[in-house]
């Protein structure tokens, strides 16, 4: 049962994002060894550069790093929230096989997002529309994926709320009246409503109370096992990474400094920065 190395779901090559005008030296003069993201010659900010990794179906990949490491930037580019400076992203789902999805038309990108991706943001306001009811928010994603039957939509939304342990009576309530943890759970319901093969989670429990955090993380864990969805989990919190991920990328100043199996990163870190990070866990 040798692993098939062509079986990847997502392949990222040379993904780079630079703010401002860069010159030929901008990438060389920034990075973890120089401890800076800012190019000394042009003042441009290298948010991330030369990012390469693969994600296999059903795998959970963690991206960990401190502020300014570039971890959120990567996920934002993959979800088309941010435009890349350069790079290729291949998505192994028909009919996009072999095409760089970053270079598709905005209409195609929207279709990819609606049918094949899900995203949960740190701030529920980014992922939910607070003018719509929680059911309406989930309906938005279902409608984008092609469901136009109100009865079915409501049934599916109720089912998803039940799965994420939100009281189903709150289907027609506005998320503005929910607690932070419940808002996150509505966001998660919305993100998985179209059963995407790929789910992004960007600092989803940062800012939540500890007990709520535990519940949300556990929910994500269970959903991942049930649905077999591939996930990219961005966090600065190593315990979240430990709980959810199979593999991890460690980032500093916009570059990947180490990648490996999560337990190996946490128990046998090789790179000095990773060792520093791991030894700093409270």
């Amino acid at each position, binding site marked *: 049962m040798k692993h098939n190395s062509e079986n990847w779901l997502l392949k990222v090559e040379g993904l780079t994002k630079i703010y401002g005008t860069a010159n030929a030296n901008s990438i060389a003069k920034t990075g973890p060894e120089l401890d800076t993201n800012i190019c000394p010659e042009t003042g441009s900010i290298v948010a991330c550069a030369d990012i390469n990794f693969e994600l296999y179906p059903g795998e959970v990949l963690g991206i960990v790093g401190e502020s300014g490491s570039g971890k959120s930037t990567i996920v934002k580019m993959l979800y088309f929230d941010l435009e890349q400076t350069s790079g290729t992203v291949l998505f192994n789902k028909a009919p996009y096989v072999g095409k760089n999805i970053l270079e598709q038309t905005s*209409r195609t990108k929207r279709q990819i997002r609606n049918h094949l991706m899900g995203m949960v943001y740190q701030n529920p306001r980014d992922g939910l*529309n607070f003018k719509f*009811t929680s*059911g*309406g928010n989930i309906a938005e994603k279902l*409608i984008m994926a092609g469901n*136009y039957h*109100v*009865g079915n939509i409501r049934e599916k939304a109720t089912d998803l709320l039940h799965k994420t342990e939100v009281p189903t009576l709150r289907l*027609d309530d506005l998320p503005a009246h929910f607690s932070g943890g419940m808002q996150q759970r509505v966001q998660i319901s919305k993100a998985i409503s179209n059963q995407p093969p790929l789910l992004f989670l960007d600092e989803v429990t940062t800012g939540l109370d500890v007990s709520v955090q535990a519940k949300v993380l556990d929910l994500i864990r269970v959903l991942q096992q049930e649905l077999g969805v591939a996930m990219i989990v961005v966090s600065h919190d190593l315990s979240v990474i430990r709980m959810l991920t199979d593999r991890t990328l460690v980032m500093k100043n916009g570059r990947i400094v180490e990648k490996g199996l999560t337990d190996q990163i946490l128990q046998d870190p090789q790179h000095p920065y990773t060792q520093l990070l791991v030894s700093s866990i409270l």
Partner: protein
Amino acid sequence: MIEDKKYETQYRFAFIDEATKKEIRRKLLKAIAVPGYQVPYSSPEMPIARGWGTGGLHVTLAIIGPTDIFKIIDQGSDASVNACNLRNFVQTMTGVETTLDTQKATIIQTRHRITEEALSTHQIFVYQVPQPEPLRSVERYENKTRQMHAEADYAKMWVSLYEQYVRHGDIMMGAGYPVKVNGRYIMAPSPIPKWDVPNLNNSKAIHLFGAGREKRLYAVPPFTKVEPLEFEDIKFHIEDFKGTACFRTGNTKAFLDELYYDDGSKHFVINDSNYLDKLVQKENPIQHNNHYLNQLDNEA
């Protein structure tokens, strides 16, 4: 009193200068080529204020010719103050024949109604539009709504219909129900009642929409598919006039106005003034043929 001779001697045929007329015509052609798509246009200054029908007037004045016969209605009536003023203005600026007769007119300008009597292939219907953007109620920003149209990303619109259903038990849009044109763009048909919306579908006439204040033109060419937005299980329906009848003709199959008299009595009367006149004169005008109206016949 200082006599205002400025426009008496210096206006062109149809008031607007030739270069601007050309621009409006070209934009109208583009609008017809892409049904339902909002085309930005110059929206020149007119001697009436914004919000009083400048858009409809722009379209009329750009397309009207000396042999046209012009009719204008306001909420179905030829006799309203604004309809009369605009009719006089067009007549003065062009010298064309004006009429109250729907069948006789070649250009019909309207505010918020389609005529009850069926239209034919030699007619152009011009709408005065307050808000051309159907998505404005769900998205404030113009650059976002443009992007939504470009990407056919109408989910927010659908969700707002869903929310109305959830909150009120039915979709509550009475006037200006959003429609999908030619299977591609969602369009605002101007605030016409739901009663009139099915008459845009597969129509024999050309329908041109002008929004002067917002500076947009759009169009529905003849025999184009125009579908009101509806879910698979929550369908579009026209207004229900069951139990009422026009008190002057006894007609039960037209859009009715509700009138309150000083003595407190309430009467219903047909809204389209020319249609009402024809019925009273026993002239048998032919009504639009759409399956919502046909269903009324079956129920009667």
